[in-house]
């Protein structure tokens, strides 16, 4: 289908440049009461129109049943591009895609079989006398357990001669553990995994961890209000979501378009902490979309933009911006495919030692909610499960500012890889308000 669209665009004099992406995906999803499968096949084309006022652009989506009306769809896109307006820029010469593996061969060509096998693993672990019951201290169930396997092929071609294609796989596991036989106010723990490879799920260990958290949640007492030091293990950082969780404001500041419009809090070369004194470990954060099998890795991004590793923050100073093809051209810089997996350099913290101030140390295992204001960095986080002096706690809200928090960050010397997060196994922060 991509050939047809590319050929049609080539013949339009009004189209100054184009970038065409063909996506073919098949997915299968299994849960206790549901077996779902599906396919998606579409071509997404970006059309660029130039005149004296600058460059306008528009997108069009073509699905298989629409090919006969392709000419009309292209006419519509050209008209929208003509009526759009923006600064002039050109697609750059093609650059080599990153070399990165994203496809789990164990899925072969059968997402349904893959989803079924993983669902069976979960069912087996949930068996009444299995290891989960031991870990939870009671029989458990996961009525909403869901496994989804996606197999995706992406091909991009541009008017500048770029051609690239890559396969990718993706597995999503989602479930809520609760005790058997108790329907009301029973207490739960959840598991959300987003991986590219089956083996990276480590499903049995993850389920046992969820069962242990359920046991702790059932015995947890409410946290008293006060000021605490905060410890975040890698799993809690990865699953804090949505998006990059605690790091969402930093990622938002690294948006090339926001920086160009003057809406960023700081620019490369400026300290990210503002007027706050940085008393923690030196903070260095890179974006790396070239880590094999990491969920946000890609060889190339939209319109064939090459994905490159770059520093977002270097020892507390803003270092780089996420740049797609357009923003890179407008900044007269090289594109890097935007912010992808975060790699945070380790520090010197020994996690077997006490907190970093005189405050009690609250270790957070699960959040039920995290909101970060991407403009100010202010956050509010609801603690679903934590521990305090070995005792399980729940039910409080953490308040503060991400930048103030990061200025105090102490980073463990060991590192972990969990989904998009590659960094210290634990990060500790000083003096967080709990209400």
């Amino acid at each position: 289908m991509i050939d047809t669209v590319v050929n049609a665009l080539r013949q339009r004099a009004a189209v100054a440049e184009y970038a065409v992406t063909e996506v073919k995906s098949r997915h299968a999803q299994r849960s206790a009461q549901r077996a779902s499968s599906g396919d998606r096949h579409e071509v997404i084309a970006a059309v660029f129109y130039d005149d004296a006022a600058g460059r306008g652009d528009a997108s069009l989506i073509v699905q298989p049943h629409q090919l006969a009306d392709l000419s009309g769809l292209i006419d519509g896109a050209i008209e929208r591009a003509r009526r759009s307006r923006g600064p002039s820029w050109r697609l750059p010469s093609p650059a080599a895609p990153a070399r990165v593996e994203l496809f789990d061969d164990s899925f072969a060509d059968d997402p349904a079989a893959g989803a079924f096998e993983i669902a069976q693993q979960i069912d087996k672990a949930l068996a009444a006398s299995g290891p989960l019951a031991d870990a939870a201290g009671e029989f458990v169930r996961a009525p909403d357990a869901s496994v989804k396997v996606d197999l995706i092929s992406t091909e991009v071609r541009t008017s500048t001669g770029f051609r690239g294609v890559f396969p990718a796989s993706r597995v999503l596991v989602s479930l809520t553990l609760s005790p058997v036989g108790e329907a009301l106010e029973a207490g739960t723990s959840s598991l959300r995994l987003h991986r590219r490879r089956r083996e990276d799920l480590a499903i049995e260990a993850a389920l046992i961890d969820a069962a242990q958290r359920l046991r702790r949640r059932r015995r947890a007492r409410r946290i008293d209000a006060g000021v605490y030091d905060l410890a975040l293990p890698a799993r809690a950082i990865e699953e804090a979501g949505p998006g990059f969780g605690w790091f969402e404001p930093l990622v938002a500041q690294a948006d090339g378009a926001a920086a160009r419009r003057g809406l960023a809090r700081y620019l490369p070369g400026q300290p990210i902490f503002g007027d706050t004194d940085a008393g923690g470990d030196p903070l260095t954060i890179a974006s790396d979309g070239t880590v094999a099998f990491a969920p946000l890795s890609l060889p190339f991004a939209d319109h064939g933009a090459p994905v490159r590793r770059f520093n977002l923050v270097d020892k507390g100073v803003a270092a780089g911006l996420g740049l797609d093809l357009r923003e890179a051209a407008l900044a007269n810089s090289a594109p890097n495919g935007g912010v992808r997996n975060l790699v945070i350099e380790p520090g010197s913290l020994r996690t077997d030692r006490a907190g970093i101030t005189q405050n009690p140390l609250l270790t957070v295992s699960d959040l039920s909610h995290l909101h970060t204001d991407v403009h100010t960095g202010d956050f509010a986080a609801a603690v679903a499960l934590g521990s305090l002096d070995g005792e399980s706690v729940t039910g409080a809200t953490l308040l503060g500012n991400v930048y103030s928090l990061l200025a105090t960050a102490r980073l463990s010397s060991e590192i972990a890889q969990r989904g998009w997060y590659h960094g210290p196994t634990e990060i500790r922060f000083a003096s967080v308000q709990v209400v």
Partner: protein
Amino acid sequence: MTAWSRRSVLTALGLSPLLPACGGGGAGNRRATTAVASLGSTRSVLRELVGSMSARFPYAAGLAAISTRRRTMADATEIHREATTRAEVVFTAVDAQGLRLVRRTSDLSPDGLARAAADLVGTATRGDFGKPRTHAAKLDGDPRRPGPWTQHAEQLLDRSRRHGGSRIVYRTTFLDVDDREVVFVGDGRDLLQRVVRARGGVAFVGTAGSTTYTSVAEQASTAGLNTLAIEDDELEAAADSALALLTARRPPSGEFDLVLDPTAAGHFVGRCVAPALLFDQWAIGASRAAALREQSVGSEAVTIIDDPSLPGGFGSYSFDDEGLDAAPRTLIDRGVLRDTLARGRSPSNVYLSGGQAAGRDELMSDVTNGLLLEGALTAYTDAAHWSVGLRASRAREIANGKLTGRLYGPLLLHGDVPGLLGAVRAATSDVRFTAGDDMAMGAPHLLTRGTVVG
């Protein structure tokens, strides 16, 4: 992958490969195999295929949706206009053991649909879906036709320049329209509806040092694009809010009488009350509210309803994904928790009914020392505790029944939902809605008591 020919698939389904509705190749059927301008042709194919599935399964249905998303964004240097169309069909069958089988496809050609259906069924007879019913959209401003709305974003940008002056460092306007046509065939019904969800507005950004403050004036509706008018006083208020925050004081902490504006009260209802009333959350033991059914969780002033049939509501629809007609559902009736949301459904237009107070000033007249919370930023609940966290962008001090003029910056209201609902003393009569993702959250101004922290 299995190699299907159109003839073999249709034969396997018990359908004639020459059925006109399936685009059998004659010139007269050409439209059925080309672009999906609407779902008319797809609807007839669905009737045939779901009929085939009905012979095999106790329940079978097909849901076709074509969605055109039109988005316009304008600022001082750029205008972007997007219009992308995606279509999808979902076949659902429930077998004798209760297992729900689902097959999705983006290929709406008759052959593509037949292949997808054949994944679920091997043999065929016909089903009966009754007379097709169509729910027409009543639109003042149809995105498929030219009208005043086509210049909405540019005109709004021009008007927004009159407000806020040079201290507003950035203004951007937006118009986001999701024009969705849906066909449901199954379970004895053949339905078609068109839902046009539109939201448009302007964002004002002010900057103080390294911090930016944003305030948005927005309208959202399913009643048509010409209903998205934003008055000048709303633009002025949004610009003033962004600027006022630059000099706002640090808010106080403690327990206060609180007047929540409709955005704050609406977020409380939509993000803190309703999520604990999801059927599925009750079923897995994840919601404290499940243990409170038929018990008092609020004062007599609290009645909360979810109504997908609300005319023009941003979350409105005529029928849901299972072909069931939209109908209001009372969740909390004069303080008593009555019901969950329907099985598998999220909130549509969820709102707290209006009260007796004539206006905000009447509510404030009952407050000796309190705060007026405005401009909700976010709200959440931990359903296990049914606790609430609601961030408002600003608060105004109330003393002796009147605003003092003192403005505070962002603050958090926290506590538990039954506690806050139980403390509701009064509400104004006018319910205003705020748009969420495919839903609307409505409330009047509300007087309650709770704990805030700055």
